[in-house]
Structure formats: C-alpha cells, structure tokens
C-alpha cells in the first residue's frame, strides 16, 4: 500500500513546513489565546456587572459569536477590518490589513466569547465571602478583582483555559480558507506543487495529532496536581 509513497517530500519541505508554517500557527495560537483570555475575562466581568447595558451587550456578543461558524466569522472580519481601519484612522480608502493581523483579530474576538464562558464559571466559583471580606478591607472593585478574585479564578480554570487553547490550536488550521500559509497551508501548497497529497496530508494529521495529544496529556497532569493542592 505504501510502496509508491514518496516520504522524501517531507524531508525536502521540512524547513518550509516548520519555519514558515508551524511558526505562523504557533504564534497565532499563542497571541490569540493571550488576547482572547484577556478579552474574555473582561467580557465575563461585564456579564456580572451591575450596569444592565454592559451586561446585555456582553451577553449578546457571546451568544452571537457562539451561534456562528468560525469560517463565517473569519470571512466577516477579513472583509470588515479594512473598513473598520478606514473608519478608525479617517483614511479616504479602506485600509489594507495583513493576513496575520486579520487572522489574529478574528481568533482573539472569536475565542474571547468561549474564554469568557470559562472565566465566568471561574469567577462564580470564588466564594462570595472572599469578595465581601476584600470589600470590608476597603478594596475597590478593581482591587478586589485583580488581587482576590481573578487569581483564584485563573488558577482553578487553568486546565479548561488550556484545553480551549488546544482547540484554538486546531481551529487555526481554518485560516486555510484565506489561503494563508499556516502549517496546513504550507503542507497543502507543497502537496499541490509536488502532487503528493497523500503523504503531506497524512503527515499534517500526524503532526497535529502528536502536538494536541501531548498537550492534552500535560493538561491532564496539571489537573491532577491542582486537584490535590
């Protein structure tokens, strides 16, 4: 079955696949996870705010994003960002937005909705006595959040946040629809150039599997350690 396979193609394109492709994928995953978690935390705080308008806005945003397929959201931002850029800078023509920026904004905004649900659960799980005690000590809202509530919420939700980041890592492959050279994009370009679809896609699947699997094992390990502590 594998007799007429050409595994040499992987060796030949090794540098391109990882230096161009995988570094894009990992950078995008890392940055989008960071900004997604920050945004998500803000959204979670808004949903618990006493201002109804903020509450409604945050809930509406989360529900909207969670109802839409990621592919559609990728297209939305890809076409919308040049106009937003133009509006923000007051330029006379729609701004040119690079592929990386567009992907980063899309994934940050999209994942923020999912991260916010995790952080909301995390914040809710902090006993209300903690907030009460912090307020009794004279702390303001932001102080209570930054010094008391959020550190505990982050700690207890770390496994879920990391699991969601693994999902994000896999989802970044969807930038394929914008013909961006992420890891899958690089593999797909080599596959089409050399006519080696079978080898390249099997190899891509293997690489994604190994990374996600090892990462999820590490998350499980962390979960066990947190459970003991």
């Amino acid at each position, binding site marked *: 079955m594998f007799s007429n396979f050409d595994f040499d193609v992987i060796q030949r394109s090794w540098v391109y696949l990882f230096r161009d492709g995988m570094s894009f994928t990992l950078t995008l995953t890392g940055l989008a996870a960071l900004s997604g978690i920050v945004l998500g935390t803000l959204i979670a705080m808004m949903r618990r705010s006493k201002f109804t308008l903020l509450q409604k806005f945050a809930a509406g945003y989360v529900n909207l994003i969670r109802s*839409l397929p990621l592919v559609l959201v990728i297209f939305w931002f890809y076409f919308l960002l040049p106009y937003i850029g133009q509006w923000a800078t007051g330029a006379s023509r729609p701004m040119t937005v690079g592929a990386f920026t567009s992907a980063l904004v899309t994934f940050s905004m999209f994942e923020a909705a999912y991260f916010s*649900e995790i952080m909301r659960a995390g914040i809710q799980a902090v006993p209300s006595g903690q907030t009460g005690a912090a307020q009794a000590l004279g702390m303001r809202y932001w102080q209570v959040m930054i010094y008391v509530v959020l550190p505990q919420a982050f700690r207890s939700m770390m496994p879920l946040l990391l699991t969601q980041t693994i999902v994000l890592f*896999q989802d970044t492959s969807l930038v394929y629809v914008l013909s961006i050279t992420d890891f899958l994009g690089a593999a797909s370009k080599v596959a089409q150039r050399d006519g080696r*679809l079978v080898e390249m896609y*099997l190899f891509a699947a293997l690489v994604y599997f190994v990374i996600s699997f090892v990462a*999820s094992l590490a998350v499980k390990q962390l979960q066990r350690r947190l459970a003991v502590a």
Partner: protein
Amino acid sequence: MNYKWNWGILLEMSPEGQGTYLQMLLSGLSWTLITAACAWVLAFTLGLTIGVVRTLPNRFGRLLGDAYVELFRNIPLLVQLFLWYFVIPELVPKHLGDLIKQMPNASVYTAVLGLGLFMSARVAEQVRSGVLSLPKGQKLAATAMGLTTAQTYRYILLPITLRVMLPPMTSEFLNTIKNTSVALTIGLMELTARARSMQEFSFQVFEAFTVATVLYLVTNLVVTFLMRKLERAVAVPGFLGASASPVAH
C-alpha cells in the same frame, strides 16, 4: 464607511441560474441542514455505542474506545475532511478509489462521514461522563436485583443518561450545524459557501454575510426551542433533569 449598501441585490438573479441570490442562500441553508442532520445520525449512533463501551468493565473495549476518542479529537476537522476526501480514495484498491472519485455529490458524502466521525468522538465523551455521573447506587441496585449488564444499561442507566445529556447534546448538535461550514473547503455548497460565492459574483459582501448570519441565528433559536420542548416532554417528574434545566451555555 463608504460601502455601497444594496439590499435589492437579494432579489436579483444569481448567475448560477438557480433563481435569485436569496434563493441561492436558502438552498445553501438546506444543504447545511441536510448534511448536519445526516452527520448527526452517524455521530449519535456511533458516539452512544462508543461512549457506553468506555464505561463497561471490559478493559480492552475501554482502551479501544479511549483510543478512538483521542484519535478523532486531536486532529483538526479540516485535516480530517482532507484525509477522507483526498487521501482515502488513493489508499483503497484502485478500482474502488476511482469509483469513489466519480461519485456525484462526493463532497456531501465525505462531509457527512468526516463530520459524523469527528462529532461521534465528542458525543462519546459526553455519554461516558453522563453514565459515570450517575450515582453508583443505581448500578449496584440493578445488579442486586439480578439484571444483566445489558439490562442494567437498557432499563436503568441509559434512560436517565439520555435525559441528563439532552442539554449537552443540544450544543453538540448545534456544533454539528456550525461545523458543516468547514466542508466548504471540499466543495460542499452549504450556507457559508453560498454567501462567499454571492460575494464573489455580486461584490455585495456585507449583504451576503448578514443574511447568512441571520439564517444561522434563526436556525440556532429554532433548534434550541425544539430541544427545550423535547426536554420538557421526556422529563420524569421529580427526578434528575426534570427541572427544565437551562441549556449548557
């Protein structure tokens, strides 16, 4: 924003010759729903079986079930679809491969198969945690009454698990509908793909995506509403899941 809005475009004829642009989008929605429904049947059947196997005392079966879930969970859906679409036809004997490649609507079948298997791993995970979340006493009592393992599952564990699982199953079904859009990469003309081609033909990008967005939102609302009704209809009064519990999101 100096974007020229033109909502009238929706009623203009699309160059694909299948009626207006709006009809083109609606036909995309129907393909989304058909593909998602078929994939869901596959995902639910397989997922239920594998999820149950993972809770059985048999170690070998459990190991196999775990391996299945890990395999399908750790490869991106897009890559899985590429494997089914581009790779598998090359790996099977040549005449079979040629037969697959010449099939009409190959992208629909591939999407159903690929999406169904991908989602089945998630369903299996939910089923397993559903069964394991039941109080141990249920199983012990069933065994004490002399029920076999098969009877225990058929009459005691599964009827409760399935009810408890309805809210997470609703989200997984909605995920299946959303994930159908990934199949546009293998040529499935579902809703997002239709919106994309309307944008390419007419350049009215935001009208196309707005209508697609609204259609996805409406689908979501309808599915959620129907599932709530189902939850209430099958609830056992005074028992687990009887309080019309909020959908898990």
